């Protein structure tokens, strides 16, 4: 019996981590889908995480915790966008990575707000139904975005910014909205993460999580909102599955190899609407050929 309840405990936390990682991946995706490779979700998550943790410590209710985390994330994302949107895509990647490094230093040196090196304990475990609710709402929002004019504009912008501009798309506006959404979702994800770990420190939001977010997003596919969710689930579950087959020491190597294989054989990720459409088109085209022959 103990074994069974242990198993449930492990899996429950895996599911919870997959859900939080989905939030992070969606936050990364929305900027990526507007044409920018950016690591700044880590920064938004850090802001949301520390704001959320402080409020939980003060005994504020969950709706306000998430609201404040979203607001904090939004604020910092608009700041980042205002400063960084002048840069081209290559620079954005470098600059946002630098920002992740800077964020860690800043959080380390502001112990009054962040607990500094010792971090902050978060005296509230995130209820599963809250996490589920937040994720469902986020996914619904992404579904709505996908079918909105923002979705249309960002798909064109990502493939060909010049064409988008000549169509009348204000590139800066779309990118600013993308960053804002990324900030809100990243901030909420950060707060959820803090409550899930029940502890955060400057090292919580550092390079490891930055690369996890990007890898999960690309693994799942960055051409549809469903991709990041799938990617986050697979990326979270992968180490657990590996555990069953491989000695601990080889796990990291195996994770790398799996990621590598996916990049080589499924470069557009697991979820690729274009591939689905191409596959659907192929038999139809073959049929037409036959009729003509």
């Amino acid at each position: 019996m103990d074994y069974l309840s242990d198993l449930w405990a492990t899996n429950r936390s895996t599911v919870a981590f997959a859900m939080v990682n989905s939030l992070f991946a969606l936050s990364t995706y929305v900027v990526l889908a507007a044409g920018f490779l950016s690591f700044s979700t880590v920064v938004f998550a850090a802001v949301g995480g520390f704001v959320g943790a402080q409020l939980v410590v003060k005994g504020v209710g969950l709706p306000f915790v998430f609201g404040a985390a979203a607001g904090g994330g939004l604020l910092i994302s608009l700041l980042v966008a205002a400063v960084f949107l002048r840069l081209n895509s290559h620079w954005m990647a470098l600059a946002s990575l630098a920002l992740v490094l800077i964020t860690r230093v800043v959080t380390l040196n502001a112990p009054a707000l962040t607990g500094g090196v010792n971090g902050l304990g978060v005296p509230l475990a995130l209820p599963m139904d809250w996490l589920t609710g937040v994720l469902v709402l986020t996914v619904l929002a992404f579904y709505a975005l996908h079918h909105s004019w923002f979705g249309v504009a960002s798909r064109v912008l990502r493939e060909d910014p010049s064409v988008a501009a000549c169509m009348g798309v204000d590139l800066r506006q779309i990118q600013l909205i993308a960053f804002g959404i990324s900030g809100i979702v990243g901030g909420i994800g950060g707060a959820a993460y803090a409550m899930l770990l029940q502890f955060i420190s400057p090292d919580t939001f550092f390079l490891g999580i930055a690369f996890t977010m990007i890898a999960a997003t690309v693994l799942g596919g960055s051409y549809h909102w469903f991709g990041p969710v799938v990617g986050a689930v697979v990326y979270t579950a992968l180490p657990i599955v590996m555990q069953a087959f491989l000695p601990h020491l080889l796990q990291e190597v195996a994770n790398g190899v799996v990621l590598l294989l996916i990049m080589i054989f499924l470069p557009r990720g697991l979820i690729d609407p274009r591939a689905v459409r191409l596959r659907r088109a192929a038999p139809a085209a073959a049929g037409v050929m036959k009729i003509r022959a």
Partner: protein
Amino acid sequence: MELFASQLLNGLALGSLCGLFGIGFGLVFATLGILNAAQGCYASWAAIIGLAAAEKMGAPFPLIMLAGMGGAAAVAVAVDQLGFQPLRTRGADMLGALITSIAFWMILDSLAGFATGQQSLSFPSTSYPGQMLLTEPVPLPAMQLITIAVLVAVAVGMHLLMTRSSVGSAIRAVGWNPVAAALGGVNSRSIILLTAALSGAISGLAGTLGGVLTSNVSFTLGQGLLLKGFAAVVVGGYSDVRGTAIAGVILGILEVFVGQYISTALRDAFTYSLLLVFLLVKPQGLFGKGSLVRA
């Protein structure tokens, strides 16, 4: 005063390592468009291979350096051909290359962990020139001078190679537009191999020197160099070797002095604040020529 001078030397030597590593890192970024997270592993592996050459074969110092460089170049070429080449043939963007490099980072770092038994190793004191060149007025360890000299030599050499030689213009041409370069008679495959090897060798040189200088041969060596080298590339401007070298040295000196005279805790804060200031005020770096925007 003596402390000041010797700390200055320390900073110069550490900064030279960052600059040197950054030149290798910036080379693939500027020409092949790859933000290579695995670059730090090249440095770690160079140090491990150099250490093996020293311990197993008793190789003399220059050979240790060559072994480290050669090993890192081989790893870099292998990573490029296994990981990046399939993406290139498919015309994938830099995102794919970044993820691939993260995968290699995970693989190479854990393998490096095995190789050193999860410890930090150091070079035997007989394997490198450990003597002081001077003791008065300032103690001057030979290794520090060698490191600084290597940075100067590599920076000058790479700058001349990139701006004055036909190989350099071929590298830039392939980076800018491989199809046009091929039409112009450049064999882009061999230029890409050369660029990867060169970048690996330079970062490997930084790794081997760093392994000796800091007595730390482990995967953390490469991670440290990656962060500092990255800062040097951003501050210096990624398309210019001189900028990276100078920025690396400045960052090294700044770090040592902040650590010595202000506080160790604030050391990184200074480095990254400088990074932020440069990103905001001069995002194209010390010698950058503005951002590249195409119609």
